[in-house]
C-alpha cells in the first residue's frame, strides 16, 4: 500500500534508479564500501593464502599470524623453497609500516602503483585503509546521531510543552557553534581522545537536523485521522508514536542519513587534516593531505586523497539529493551546508 504514497521510500528509490547520474553516485558509493570491506584483499603486507615451509596459511592478510611476522613479499621470493606458493593482495604493503623508498612517484615502481609517501609508506594502501576509516566513522556517527535526533525530535513533537522548549533551545544553541570548532576543542581537551570520542562528539553535534525533521513530521502527523483512530482504539501514547507516527518519518531520515554520511566524511577528514581527528596510528585521507604539506612537489600525495574525499562526498550528496527530490520535489535545493 505504501508504494502508492508520493513520499514512500520504495517509490523514491525506483525514481532514483531511473536517473543516470544518481545511479552512478550509488554505484560509486557501493564501490567505496566494497573497497573498505575488502581493504585487506587490496593491500596488506601478508599474502591472502600461502604455503610456506609446508604450512598453509589462510587469510594471513587479515589475521597476521605470528609465524609470518617478519614476512615481506621480497623476503618470500628470496627464501622461497620448492613447493611454496602464495596469493598476494593487489598491493603487498600495509598502510602503517614503511615499505620501500620514500616519495616514489606513481607508476614508477611495480610494487607501489600509486607511489609512496614521505616516510616510505605505500599510498595505495593508505588510501584503501583511509576509505575504511572514513566510511566506518561516518556510518557509526550517522547511526548514532539519527538515533539521538529521532528520539529527541519525536519526544519534542509528541510531548510538546517543556520537553519541546528544552529540545528547541538545545538545537538553537548547538546550531550557533561551528561544528568543526566544537569537535576540535573537545578532541583537543579530552584526556583520552580517540576514535570513539570522535564518533560521539560528531553524533552529539549533528543530531539537531534530524531532530528538527522528525519533530516537524510528528507534528504534521499528530492531527491525522489514523492517529486519532489509534488513540480511540485505546493505544498507549508510546504505541501510537512507535507504530503510527514514527514509520512516516523514515523517508526524511533516510535522506538525512545519506546526506549526513557525506558531511561527516567531510568533517572527519577536515579534523584529521588538522590532526585532531582519529589517532595518528589510523590511516586517514585528511592526515595524508596534511602530510602533503611537507612534500610540496609530490603532487600525488595531495591530489589522490583530496580527490577521494571529493568523490565520496559528491557521491553521497548526489545520491542524497536525488532521493530527496524523489521524495519531496518541493523541498529540493534548500539544504544548508554545515561542514568546511
Amino acid at each position: 500500500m505504501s508504494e502508492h504514497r508520493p513520499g514512500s521510500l520504495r517509490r523514491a528509490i525506483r525514481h532514483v534508479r531511473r536517473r543516470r547520474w544518481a545511479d552512478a553516485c550509488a554505484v560509486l558509493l557501493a564501490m567505496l564500501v566494497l573497497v573498505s570491506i575488502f581493504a585487506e584483499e587490496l593491500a596488506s603486507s601478508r599474502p591472502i593464502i600461502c604455503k610456506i615451509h609446508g604450512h598453509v596459511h589462510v587469510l594471513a592478510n587479515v589475521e597476521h599470524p605470528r609465524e609470518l611476522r617478519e614476512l615481506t613479499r621480497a623476503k618470500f621470493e628470496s627464501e622461497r623453497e620448492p613447493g611454496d606458493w602464495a596469493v598476494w593482495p593487489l598491493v603487498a604493503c600495509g598502510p602503517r609500516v614503511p615499505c620501500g623508498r620514500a616519495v616514489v612517484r606513481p607508476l614508477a615502481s611495480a610494487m607501489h602503483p600509486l607511489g609512496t609517501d614521505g616516510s616510505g609508506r605505500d599510498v595505495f594502501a593508505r588510501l584503501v585503509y583511509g576509505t575504511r576509516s572514513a566510511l566506518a566513522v561516518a556510518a557509526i556517527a550517522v547511526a548514532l546521531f539519527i538515533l539521538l535526533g529521532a528520539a529527541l525530535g519525536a519526544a519534542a513533537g509528541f510531548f510538546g510543552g517543556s520537553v519541546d522548549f528544552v529540545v528547541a533551545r538545545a538545537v538553537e544553541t548547538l546550531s550557533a557553534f561551528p561544528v568543526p570548532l566544537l569537535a576540535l576543542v573537545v578532541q583537543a581537551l579530552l584526556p583520552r581522545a580517540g576514535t570513539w570520542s570522535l564518533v560521539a562528539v560528531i553524533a552529539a553535534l549533528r543530531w539537531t537536523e534530524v531532530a528538527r525533521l522528525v519533530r516537524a513530521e510528528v507534528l504534521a502527523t499528530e492531527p491525522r485521522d489514523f492517529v486519532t483512530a489509534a488513540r480511540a482504539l485505546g493505544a498507549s501514547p508510546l504505541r501510537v508514536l512507535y507504530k503510527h507516527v514514527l514509520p512516516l518519518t523514515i523517508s526524511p531520515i533516510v535522506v538525512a542519513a545519506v546526506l549526513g554520511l557525506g558531511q561527516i566524511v567531510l568533517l572527519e577528514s577536515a579534523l584529521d587534516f588538522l590532526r585532531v581527528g582519529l589517532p595518528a596510528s589510523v590511516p586517514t585521507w585528511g592526515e595524508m593531505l596534511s602530510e602533503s604539506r611537507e612534500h610540496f612537489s609530490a603532487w600525488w600525495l595531495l591530489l589522490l586523497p583530496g580527490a577521494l574525499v571529493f568523490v565520496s562526498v559528491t557521491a553521497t550528496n548526489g545520491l542524497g539529493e536525488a532521493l530527496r527530490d524523489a521524495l519531496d520535489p518541493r523541498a529540493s535545493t534548500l539544504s544548508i551546508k554545515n561542514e568546511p
Partner: protein
Amino acid sequence: MLRYTIRRILWAIPTIFGISIVAFLVTTLIPAPPRLTLAELDDALAKNPAAYDAYVESRRASAFDLPAFVNESPRDVQAIVAECVDHLAKNDAGARVSAHELARIGGAGFPYLLPTFDRLEPAARERVALALLPVAERMGQADDPRAHDPASAPTFWTQLWEDRSLEFTGPAVRRSVQRLARGVTAGRERDLIEVDTFALPELMRAMRERTTTDDEVARLSQVASHVSGHAVVVPIAMTHEAASRIRADWASWWTTHREDYVALDAGERIFATLSDTRYGRWLLGAVTGELGTVTRDGEPASQKLAECAPVTLALTLSAMFLSFAIAVPIGVIGARRRGTRVDRALAGLIFLFYSLPSFFLAELLDHAVGPRAGGGTRAILAILVMTASSVATLSRFQRASMMDVLDQDWVRTARAKGLRERRVLVVHALRNAIVPMVTLAGVQLPFLFGTAIVVEEVFQLPGMGYETMRAVESHDATWLVATVLVVGLGATLTLLASDIAYGFLDPRIRERLLKTREVAE
C-alpha cells in the same frame, strides 16, 4: 516592529544561556587535579609546603574546590577562620593545614580571631598564636621575642590587637592606600604592611580604579604581593601594557581569592550560593572580560582575542560579501532559465563546489602559489576558498526563492504591462526574492568560521582559527574556551540581527512570530 524586536531578543536569552553552558562544559573537560583527603593534605604540607601551596592554587584557579552549579554553604573569611581555630583547638589531623591557612589569611582574619582569643583554652590559644608567627614576620613584628615563645605568644597577639584594632577598619586602610598610591615613603608602606592582608580589599579597589596611574599600580602591586604571597612581576621600567597586565593579573587573582579575605553579608551570601560555584565564577569572569591567560605566551585571552578577531572577521565578512555577490546573479539566472541547459550547467557546477572540501581547495591553491607567496596573496586566496565553500548554499537558496517569486501574480502583471524583462527581474522579482537571503547571512557565520579555522591554518594567517590550532597544540584550555564562547555569542547575535532585519523587511514575518509561540523553523 518594536514588539517583534523585543520578543526576538527575549527568545535569544535561553540560547545565550545555553551557549554559556556549552562553553562551561568545555572547561570541565580539562582534567582536574586529584582531590586529596585531609590526611594526605597534612602529609603533603609536612613534606613540602611549596608543593602544597601549588596544589591548592591549581585547584582554586579553576575553581575545582567549588561545586559545579549550586553552593549551599559559601565560605568566607569568618567561616574559614572559625573552622581553622576549631581544628587547632582539637589538635586533630587538620591542625597543620589549619595553621598554614590561618597564616595565609593573616590580618584579614584578625577581626574574627583576636577579639575572641580569650575564650579559647590556654593550649589552643598557644597553638593558634604560634600559627600566626608567619603573619608577624610579614608585618615586620618578628623581632619581638614574645611572638616566638609559646608561653607569651598569646599575650603578644592580644596586646597587638589592643594597640592596633583601630587600624583594622575600612576607612583607616583606605586612607593608607590613598597615601601610598600618591607617593611612596617607607612609613606609608609600613602602615599597610602592618594591617597585612586586611588591606587587600582596598588595594584591589584602588588598582581597579581608572584614575590610578601606572606607577601607582606598581606600588600597590608590590604591597599586595608582599601580604598575599601572590607574586606579580613588576618591571623596573613601567609601561602601560605592563600595568594593564598587572591589573588583569590581580583582578583574576581576586575573583578566586576574595572570600579568603572578605566576610560576606547576608545579601552577598545568598548571591554567593550561585556565584561561588564553578559555573558562577567562570561566568562572572567571562562577563567582565576576564577570560584568563593564554598559557602559550602569557597574554590575557581577551587581549589576544582583540588582536586575532579582526583578521578572522575581515576574512569572514569579505567572503560573505563576495559569495552573496556571486550567488545572487547565479541564482537569478538559474531561476530565470529554469530547466534549460544553462540552468543545468550552473546547477552541476554549484553541486561540484558544494562537495569540494575547503581544506583540499586551500591546499591546491597553496601548492599553486608556492610557499613564498606574500601575506596579501594568501589572504586573497583564503577569502576565495571561503567564498567557494559558501557560494553553493547561497546560490541554491537564491534560485529557489527567485523561482517562488517568479511564479507570483505580480510578476505576471509586470510582464503583462509590457515592462522590459530586466526591469521585471531586478525591480519586481529580485527585490522580493532577496529578502529571505537575509536570514542566511546569520546562518552562514558559524559555517564560515568553521572554514576559517582550516583556511587560516593552511595559509598561516594570524586569525582566531590559526590561534586555535596553536592552542590545540599546547593544550591551552583558556583560549579554546574563550573562542567557543565568543564564536557562539557572535553567531547568536548575528542570527538575532539578521532575524530582526528580516522582520523589518518583511512584515509577514513579524506577524507570524507574534502570533505563534514558537520561532518559525
